[in-house]
C-alpha cells in the first residue's frame, strides 16, 4: 500500500512526500505557509491566481505551487527575493482591479485578499486603478445572495463550487481578456437564473464579492419597535459554529451563551428551531408510514422513495433539475417554516399576542433559508410565516455590534412553548441527522421498541462520505403496522448537490432501491451551510459535526416523539400528525421550474 516517496529540497531542507503531492502540500508538511487565493481544499486545482508561486532551481519560470507536483530532486525556494517580488506584484495587480473600500466591506477582517495585502505591505499606488473604467455592478436582485463585481478577483472558486460541489453551474466565466468576469448565464441577474441560493459560493469566496443579502438593520429596527413582539429561532447547526465568529476554535459548543446573547440583543423570546425539527420528525415519520401503507396495502400509486424537504437549496435544485419528481419530496415544510407557522398561530395564542405584531426572526446556517422564507406559499398562518432570516455570520456581527463580551457571559435556557428539543433534533445540523432522527422515531412507532443501535446512535448514516446508505429490518412489528413485518427498510443520505444528483439519476430511471432518502444541499449538511463562518472546510466541518453529536449525547431526551412541548402542541392544537391542522400549517407543495 505504501506510496512511492519523492525526495526534494524545500528552503534548504530535505523533504520526502508521497508521489502526487504538490509543492504546496510538501510545504504544508514542513509547516511552511505559502499564500494562496484560488486554492481551496474542497475544490479542484485551478492555478490561476499565481500568488502561490515558488522558485525551482533550473526552471525558467516560477511555477504555481498548488498546481505543480513534487518531482524527484527538485530544489524549491518558497521565500526567495524573486518569489517575494513576484507575489507582491501579483497582489498589487489584483488590488488594482479590486474595490479596496475595505472599511465598508462586509468581509473586512475576514478577507483572504486583505490579509495578504497586509502581509505583503502592498502599496495601492503602484499600478493604475482599473476600476474607474469598468462598469462594475452590484447585483442585489436575489433574496439570498449579493454579487459585487468590483470585489471579485476572478479566482473562480465560486465557479468551481457551483459546478463541482453543487452541479448547478449558475456561475461561470464570461468574456476574455480585460473583460473576463464571473457571471450568470447571459449575465442575467441572480434572481432570474437557476440558482439554489445554497450560498456555497459565498462560503468559498475569498473576498466580499459574494455575500449573503443582509437583514441586520431590519432586525434591529423590529427589536427597537415597542409594538412588536420579536421572537428568534436558532437552527441546530448555528450553536456549533457561531463561536468561530466570536473568538472560539471550530467545534466549540456555545448554545447557552448564544441564548444569553440573543436575550441581550433584545429579542422578546428566544426559541429553538430544534423544537420544530422534532415536530418535523413527527410529521415526516408518519408521512413515510402513510406512504408505505398506501403503496403496500392500498396499492396506490405513491412516490417512493420519499425524500426529505428540510433543505431549501435542495428543494430549489429538484424543482429546477428534476421537476418530474416533486412527488417524491416529503410535503413537510422545513423546521424553519414549521416554526414560523406555529409561532404565528399557536405561540401567538398562548402568549396572547396579535400575530400581526409578532415578528419571527430565524438564525440559520444557510442563505437559501432567506429565499425559503419569502416563498409566496409560506404564509399559512395568514401572515408571512418567517419575517427575516439571518445567517450565523450575521448573528456574529450583531453580537459584536451589541458590545457583549461573548466569552464571558453565562449560559441561559431557551424560552417556553417552542424552546424544548430532543437530541434527535439537534443532529438535523449534520448530514444524516434527519435520517437518524426519523429512524429513532419511526422504528419505535412501528415496533414499540427503541431502534437497535448502541446508544440510539445510527452510525451508518453519520460521517462525511458523499452518499451513505443503511438498512433496518422490521420484525415483531405492532399489529397496526403488520404490513411492514419482515421488510428491510433501505435508506440513503446524500449531501452536496452533486451527490444528490447522482441519487436522483437513479430515481429518475426508476432504479433507486431506497424507501427514504435524506438530502442536504451543502457538504456536511447544515454545519457546512452557506451561511456558516468562513472558512469552512472538511476539517472544520468534521469538528462542527462532532460538536453536534456531543450536543445530542448530552440531551436527556433523545427522541423527537418524547419532546414534551411537541406532545403538548399536538394535545392543545394540532391533534395528531398529518391531521387537518398539520396539513394546513405544516405541509406544503412545490413548483415546477425551468432548467434555464
Amino acid at each position, binding site marked *: 500500500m505504501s506510496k512511492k516517496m519523492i525526495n526534494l529540497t524545500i528552503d534548504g531542507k530535505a523533504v520526502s512526500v508521497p508521489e502526487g503531492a504538490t509543492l504546496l502540500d510538501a510545504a504544508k508538511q514542513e509547516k511552511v505557509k505559502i499564500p494562496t487565493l484560488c486554492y481551496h481544499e474542497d475544490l479542484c486545482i485551478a*492555478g490561476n*491566481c499565481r500568488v502561490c508561486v515558488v522558485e525551482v532551481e533550473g526552471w525558467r519560470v516560477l511555477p504555481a505551487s498548488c498546481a505543480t507536483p513534487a518531482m524527484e530532486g527538485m530544489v524549491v525556494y518558497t521565500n526567495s527575493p524573486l518569489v517575494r*517580488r513576484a507575489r507582491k506584484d501579483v497582489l498589487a495587480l489584483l488590488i488594482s*482591479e479590486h474595490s479596496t473600500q475595505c472599511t465598508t466591506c462586509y468581509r473586512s477582517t475576514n478577507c483572504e485578499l486583505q490579509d495578504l495585502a497586509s502581509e505583503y505591505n502592498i502599496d495601492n499606488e503602484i499600478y*493604475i486603478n482599473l476600476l474607474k473604467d469598468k462598469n462594475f455592478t452590484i447585483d442585489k436582485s436575489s433574496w439570498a445572495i449579493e454579487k459585487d463585481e468590483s470585489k471579485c478577483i476572478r479566482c473562480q472558486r465560486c465557479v468551481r463550487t457551483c459546478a463541482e460541489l453543487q452541479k448547478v453551474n449558475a456561475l461561470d466565466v464570461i*468574456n476574455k*481578456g480585460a473583460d473576463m468576469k464571473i457571471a450568470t448565464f447571459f449575465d442575467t441577474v441572480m434572481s432570474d437564473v437557476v440558482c439554489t441560493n445554497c450560498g456555497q459560493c459565498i462560503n468559498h469566496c475569498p473576498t466580499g464579492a459574494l455575500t449573503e443579502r443582509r437583514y441586520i438593520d431590519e432586525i434591529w429596527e423590529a427589536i427597537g419597535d415597542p409594538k412588536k413582539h420579536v421572537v428568534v429561532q436558532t437552527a441546530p447547526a448555528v450553536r456549533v459554529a457561531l463561536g468561530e465568529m466570536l473568538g472560539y476554535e471550530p467545534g466549540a459548543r456555545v448554545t447557552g451563551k448564544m441564548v444569553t446573547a440573543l436575550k441581550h440583543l433584545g429579542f422578546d423570546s428566544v426559541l429553538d428551531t430544534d423544537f420544530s425539527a422534532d415536530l418535523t420528525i413527527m410529521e415526516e415519520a408518519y408521512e413515510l408510514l402513510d406512504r408505505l401503507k398506501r403503496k403496500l396495502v392500498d396499492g396506490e400509486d405513491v412516490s417512493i422513495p420519499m425524500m426529505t424537504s428540510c433543505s431549501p437549496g435542495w428543494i430549489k435544485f429538484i424543482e429546477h433539475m428534476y421537476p418530474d419528481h416533486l412527488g417524491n419530496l416529503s410535503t413537510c415544510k422545513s423546521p424553519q417554516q414549521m416554526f414560523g407557522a406555529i409561532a404565528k398561530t399557536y405561540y401567538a395564542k398562548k402568549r396572547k399576542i396579535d400575530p400581526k405584531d409578532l415578528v419571527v426572526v430565524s438564525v440559520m446556517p444557510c442563505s437559501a433559508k432567506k429565499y425559503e422564507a419569502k416563498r409566496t406559499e409560506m404564509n399559512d398562518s395568514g401572515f408571512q410565516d418567517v419575517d427575516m432570516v439571518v445567517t450565523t455570520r450575521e448573528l456574529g456581527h450583531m453580537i459584536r455590534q451589541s458590545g457583549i463580551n461573548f466569552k464571558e457571559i453565562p449560559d441561559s435556557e431557551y424560552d417556553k412553548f417552542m424552546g424544548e428539543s430532543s437530541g434527535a433534533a439537534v443532529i438535523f445540523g449534520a448530514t444524516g441527522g434527519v435520517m437518524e432522527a426519523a429512524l429513532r422515531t419511526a422504528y419505535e412507532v412501528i415496533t414499540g421498541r427503541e431502534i437497535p443501535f448502541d446508544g440510539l446512535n445510527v452510525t451508518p448514516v453519520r460521517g462525511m462520505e458523499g452518499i451513505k446508505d443503511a438498512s433496518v429490518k422490521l420484525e415483531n412489528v405492532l399489529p397496526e403496522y403488520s404490513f411492514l413485518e419482515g421488510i428491510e427498510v433501505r435508506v440513503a443520505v446524500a449531501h452536496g448537490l452533486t451527490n444528490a444528483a447522482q441519487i436522483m439519476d437513479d430515481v429518475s430511471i426508476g432504479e433507486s432501491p431506497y424507501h427514504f432518502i435524506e438530502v442536504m444541499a451543502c457538504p456536511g449538511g447544515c454545519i457546512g451551510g452557506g451561511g456558516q463562518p468562513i472558512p469552512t472546510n472538511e476539517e472544520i466541518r468534521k469538528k462542527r459535526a462532532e460538536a453536534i453529536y456531543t450536543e445530542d449525547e448530552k440531551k436527556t431526551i433523545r427522541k423527537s416523539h418524547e419532546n414534551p412541548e411537541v406532545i403538548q402542541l399536538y394535545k392543545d392544537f394540532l391533534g395528531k400528525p398529518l391531521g387537518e391542522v398539520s396539513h394546513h400549517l405544516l405541509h406544503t407543495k412545490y413548483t415546477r421550474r425551468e432548467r434555464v
Partner: protein
Amino acid sequence: MAKQKLKRVDLIFSQECSCKDIISAALQKPKEEIVKELIDSGLKGRGGAGFPTGLKWKMAMQEKGNKKYVICNADEGEPGTFKDREILDRVATKVLGGMALAGYVTGAREGFIYLRHEYKFLIPKLEKVLEKFHIWMDDFDLDFKVKLFIGGGAYVCGEETALIESMEGKRGEPRNKPPYPSSDGYLGKPTVINNVETLVYALMIIRIGADKFKSMGFEGSTGSKLFSVSGDTPKAGIYELELGMTLDEFVKEFGDGDAKAVQVGGASGFCVPRKRFAETHIGYQGGLKGFSLPTGGSMMIFNSSRSMYNVLHNYLEFFEEESCGQCTPCRVGCQQLLKGVEAVKRGEKSQKYLNDLLRLAETMQLTAKCGLGQSVGNSFSSIVENFREEMIY
C-alpha cells in the same frame, strides 16, 4: 557554426514526389525507426515554442491505452503569421501525411485539424483532400481518420492545452502543466499535438533522412522553416529559409533599405533594433553565441517612418483583449502595461514609470500560467528598452 548565407530551401511546398508515395514509403518503416529519425533530425516545433518533435511522439508512443489522438494545430493566430494557411491551401496532403505518421507511430486512430475560425474558406478544399486521404489510408490498411474542428476565434486557443479544452467544449483556457498532452491530452487521452508546418517537416524528414535535414541550420536549430515576411518590405510573402541566418542578412534580402527594427515572432516575440541586426540569429536559443531568437515564422519589418510606440500600443491592445483572462499576471498585467504606456505618453506618469512596467513585464514572464502570458513581456521589454525615447516623446 552558423552559416553565413541566407539560403532558400524547398521542402514544404515541393511537389517533386507524389505525396501518396512519400506516405506509403514512410509507413513501411518501423515505428521506432521513425521516432529515432525524427529525434536525430533535431526537428523542433515550428509553431514557435520549439519542443523536440521526435521526443513528443516518443512520449505519446510509450503511453499505454488504446485511445490516443493526433491534433494538427492550425489555429494560426500570431499577428504577422500566415504560413499555415498557405500550407493547408497548397499541400494539405503533406500535413495529413505527417498526421498519419504520428498516428501510425503512437497508435492513434483519430486525428483532428483544429482550423482557426478565420480560415473557414479552406473547409471545402480540405474536405476534398480528406476524402482522398481516407481512401489512401484504406489502401495502406492504416486505421486512421482525420476530422476538421473549427475554432471559435480566440488567440489563446493556439496554446495547445487551451486548444484541447476548446475541443472538449469548454472555455479555451490553458491547463496547468504538467501533465502534458502527450499523457493527458484530448479527453484525457495521450495526444500528439503539432503545428501544421511541423507535421510537414516530420513527413519530409522521413523521406529525405535526418542527415540531410541536419545538414541545414546549426546545432540545436537544424533544418529550415517557413517565414511570413511582412511590414516595410517590397517582398512580403512566405519564404522557406535555412535556420541560423542573421537579421542583417535577412534585412538585406527583404528590407526596403530603411529598416529600423524587426519584430521576430509576432506580437509575442522580440523586437530587434537595427544596431543588433548583425549579432542576432534566427533559431532556437542555446545553440549559438550572441542572440538567437526563435520564431513561429512571423517577421515584421519596420522602417524609420514607423512609431514604435504605436507598434507596441497595437500589440498591447491585442493582448489586453486576447488574454483568456484566467490568470492574474496576464489578465491584469496586460491592462496595466497598456494603460501604463498611455499614461507615460500623456505625461500623467513620469518616464520612470516605464521601469516599473518593465519589472511588471518580467513578473508576467515569470508567473503567468501559459506561454501567452509569459511572452507578452517579450515584445514589451524589447520595444521599451530599445525605443525608450519613442515611448516618452
